[in-house]
């Protein structure tokens, strides 16, 4: 009987402690995640402003040397610079010498394209 009491106590205590510790972790991780995200967004915005100013200056100086300037509209999802560069290169490869400009790069939402799905499927097949 004494052991049963201990077992029930352990069930409740264990349940509560495990959940409590993990819920505390959820709270802390969510808070510091948000803090870091906001801080990084701010610093990114500052960097972008500097970039835009720099780009405007070069545009004024010499327009003929700049066939296109990728003006990136990040919105909320930050698209890394490398990805933008790759997209711009792909556009350039497609349009060739025709005058063109990448005005914005936006995520297409959560749905994957057929190509994307095939790629992910290939990568996760071993699992």
């Amino acid at each position, binding site marked *: 009987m004494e*052991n*049963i009491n*201990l*077992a*029930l106590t*352990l*069930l409740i*205590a*264990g*349940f509560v*402690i*495990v*959940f*409590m*510790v*993990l*819920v*505390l*972790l*959820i709270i*802390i*991780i*969510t808070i*510091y*995640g948000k803090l*870091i*995200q906001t801080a*990084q967004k701010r610093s990114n915005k500052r960097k972008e402003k500097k970039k835009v100013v720099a780009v405007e200056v070069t545009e004024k100086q010499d327009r003929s040397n700049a066939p296109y300037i990728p003006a990136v509209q990040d919105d909320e999802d*930050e698209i890394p610079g490398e990805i933008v560069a790759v997209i711009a290169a792909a556009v350039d490869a497609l349009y060739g010498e025709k005058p063109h400009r990448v005005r914005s790069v936006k995520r297409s939402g*959560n749905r*994957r394209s057929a190509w994307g*799905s095939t790629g*992910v*499927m290939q990568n*996760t097949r071993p*699992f």
Partner: protein
Amino acid sequence: MDIFSQLGSVIVGLFQSSGLCHLGWQNYVMIVISFLLMFLAIKKQYEPLLLLPIAFGMMIVNIFPEIMANPVTQMLTFEQVTAQGLDPASYPTSSQLITGAQAIAAGFDPMTLEKVMVGDSEFYKVVYYTVTENGGLFYYLYQGVHLGIFPPLIFLGIGAMTDFGPLIANPKSFILGAAAQIGIFITFIGAILLGFQTNEAGSIAIIGGADGPTAIFVTSKLAPELLGPIAVAAYSYMALVPIIQPPIMRLLTTKKERSIVMGQLRPVSKLEKIIFPVVVVVLVAILLPDAAPLVGMLMLGNLFKESGVVDRIAKTAQNELMNIVTIFLGVTVGATASGTLFLTPKTLGIIALGLIAFCLGTACGVLFGKIMCWATKGKINPLIGSAGVSAVPMAARISQKVGQEENPANFLLMHAMGPNVAGVIGSAVAAGVLISVLK
């Protein structure tokens, strides 16, 4: 003629020392079981990295039990040492004073012993030689398991291999990691009802955490005598995750729930990943110091990886160190399954309860997944709940596989990794609770 009789005695001696003479039926049963485990490891590839050394250790100890023999220290007299053909000068000595009556009772002739007077009493001085016989190879390797050294080292390697990104991106996964631990505490009650002692019940229940190193760590602290059956049960169930989990997952979910496609996880910055291990250790070690060795080493390994400044150490932890410890842990855990000790009704009870704990953990994870699915209005696929029972990364792969059976374009793997790694932390926390309450 002399040669023939000598040859005859050599052959008889060899036969008598061979397994054919001294092995019991239990040993033969265990050898067959080890063959079965080897088949599962090699042919079916169920966790071969662990199952293969375990099966081999199991086989070898049942053929040659002396490989696990404890070292023996004997206190021998001069006559006994010389009778064994040993050189007394090469052994340390210690002397003891005994009375005449004690000397006669111990078989000494007092006349041959040196007489010593202490006050008015007459004593005889007996000199003993300390003759130590070394233990078997596996005995020494097993000390890493017995003293609870290997499990934290394995955790160091796991930490260095684990990407906590999916968990940081979706911290709610922790709930599923915690839910899957409920099986541990429910099984504890079952074990008590079946008549196990509280410390034994705690060690059996932790099998439900589906985490081999954690199970070994808890058992080495609470019930070291049960290490063999518990470690074998824990690792076998981890290897059998692909067989045990899917039926439970299908039983508890609807087709519609299994087909839920989850949204992409947000990218997690490097800074967040670096802060995570430090925060977890500080919080867990302060609240539950008994979980500190496991969680501490897990997070140290992760900090090595995420900091990016100690690449060499991180690589050693996740490759060489991890592999070496896995070999030692595997063979010696297998070697604890010697027939006479293993084939007992108690072991059957442990294996049955372990399976129940494992199934309950899976079921609780899936059920909490359903609750979260309902709470988020269908944004969470309940299948990822079953990954809350550690068994990294096998349990997450099973979530992915079962999800893909319903919808081939559904990729749950990264979503399931969140609860999966949360389960590792959760089972270490549950281990801390068991140790602190039952020790």
